[in-house]
């Protein structure tokens, strides 16, 4: 397939996709890969230096930092992914409904989108978490709740752009059911835009979720989430600043990777952009 070939020819796209897969795999295989138990405390051995047993040293409770990082992939990347799927799902559903059925449905949905977009996203996250209470599940709900409007608007624009195209008209003329037109014509047409936006937004979701955890509003302390780890590292900032390097660097690397992947995907999916 032409698209697959273009993807394979784009070195950045391949490399970043592989890297993300590798990280995800490491998260899944955490029990095998982690050298130590991420929850096992060893108070006598706190702030240990780099060693063979503790490749990245230990934290203020004597827990293995590397093991915690590896286990931390699960909540960090996992929650971001769940958030993105939820957002795209909800956004696509409402966006397609609005763009395709028009009329009063569209009016209602789009005015709702306008209102949602008139709040800064960060404040809405805090408001929703405040309202529902502090828990992981609520963090996801909050993130989906504030982000769906962007996707709904984008997808609606996409649908409107294609709904009067000749191939859609033809499909309708020969009597294809509406469902077929929606899922076989309109949805694939906007998939490329969606993929680019989504991969850029995964980075955003990672930062957002880790920020909430850092403030103590997301994943709670003993769980090795990267933001929560930084929250713990903050307490020992003056005595042991090294503690905050590993989780922070991990976040930056992963987010950078997703951002690069987004840019690369854009090049792959829309070759016109590159030449222009």
């Amino acid at each position: 397939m032409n698209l697959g070939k273009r993807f394979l020819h784009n070195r950045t796209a391949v490399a970043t996709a592989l890297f993300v897969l590798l990280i995800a795999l490491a998260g899944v295989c955490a029990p095998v890969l982690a050298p130590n138990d991420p929850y096992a405390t060893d108070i006598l051995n706190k702030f240990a230096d780099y060693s063979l047993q503790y490749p990245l040293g230990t934290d203020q409770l004597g827990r293995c930092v590397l093991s915690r990082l590896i286990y931390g992939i699960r909540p960090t990347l996992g929650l971001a992914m769940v958030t993105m799927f939820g957002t795209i799902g909800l956004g696509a559903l409402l966006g397609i409904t609005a763009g395709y059925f028009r009329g009063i449905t569209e009016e209602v949905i789009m005015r709702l989108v306008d209102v949602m977009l008139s709040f800064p996203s960060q404040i809405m996250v805090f408001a929703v978490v405040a309202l529902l209470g502090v828990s992981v599940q609520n963090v996801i709900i909050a993130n989906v709740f504030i982000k769906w409007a962007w996707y709904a608007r984008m997808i609606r624009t996409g649908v409107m752009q294609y709904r009067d195209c000749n191939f859609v008209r033809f499909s309708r003329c020969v009597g294809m059911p509406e469902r077929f037109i929606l899922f076989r014509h309109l949805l694939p047409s906007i998939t490329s835009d969606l993929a680019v936006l989504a991969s850029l937004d995964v980075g955003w979701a990672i930062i957002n979720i880790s920020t909430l955890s850092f403030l103590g509003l997301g994943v709670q302390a003993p769980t090795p989430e990267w933001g929560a780890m930084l929250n713990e590292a903050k307490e020992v900032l003056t005595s042991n600043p090294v503690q905050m390097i590993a989780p922070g660097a991990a976040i930056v690397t992963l987010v950078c990777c997703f951002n690069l992947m987004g840019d690369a995907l854009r090049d792959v999916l829309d070759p016109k952009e590159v030449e222009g």
Partner: protein
Amino acid sequence: MKRYVVRRLLMAIPLLAAVSFICFMFINLIPSNPAEVALRVQQMPVITEEAVARMEEMLGLNKPFLVRYFDWLAGCLKGDFGISYVNPARTVAGELARCLPATLQLAAASFAIVAVLSVPIGFLCAVYKDGWFDRIMRGVIFISTAMPAYWVGLLLMWGMGVKLRILPTNGSGTWRHLILPAFTVSLSYISTYIRLIRNNMLENMKQDYVLYANVRGLPQRAILVRHILKNSMHTCIVAMGMSIPQLIAGTIVVENVFSWPGLGTLCISSIFNRDYPVIQTYVLLIGVLFVVFNLLFDILQTVSDPRLRREE
């Protein structure tokens, strides 16, 4: 022109109403009874039915939903946002007024940093496109967009405060306390605007009026500054203006890192204390600011840009 402004103003009214309605809904969506929460927050030892009823009476919770909404809205318009659950002696308006100056100070300082740094850097990046400066800045921008603000804050705190001991790491008071938090807040905005100005300028360089200026033999510097930069600044100023509420809201995380006594710190502690009226009013404030600034700069853009004016 006048018609456009009026239409835009009228369009803002339903939006403001919707924003206020959502903020009001917010407190009514709490899974538990607000009166009970208020009593619990005040550490009432035994919560009796009577006490709940009295609290409901005091907070006006026993009236129908829409009546309460309009009561609340009328109160808001008069500047009365209710009382804090945690400390009934304090009004929400008083709490916000106490914390607002610190946040505004921080936001203003960040805005100044953004404006002072991003315009010249964006300009230089566009002029020396693909040169060493541009390439370095592109790298810096790329990394900085991936850095969570709180981590940048921690790094700066450690580097400037603990290691070099040249700047205080928390609290407020003097301008020296302001530097680290302001810089942290501004970092992500700086990268956004550098990119915006750079791309705008590159876009403008391809325009016919630049070619014409070159044909007339104007010196390069004059073309760059007086024509290209000036035209590129249009959208940039509008974008910056629209981002002011975002900047005010964006201080929430950084304030907590640096224990800055502003709205963000108030908001987070209110979340932990379940002081819903404070959170509600904070969200309302930011939402209204957002709508108002969008409106203001949208109109400003139309007024200042002749191309947009003609289309109307």
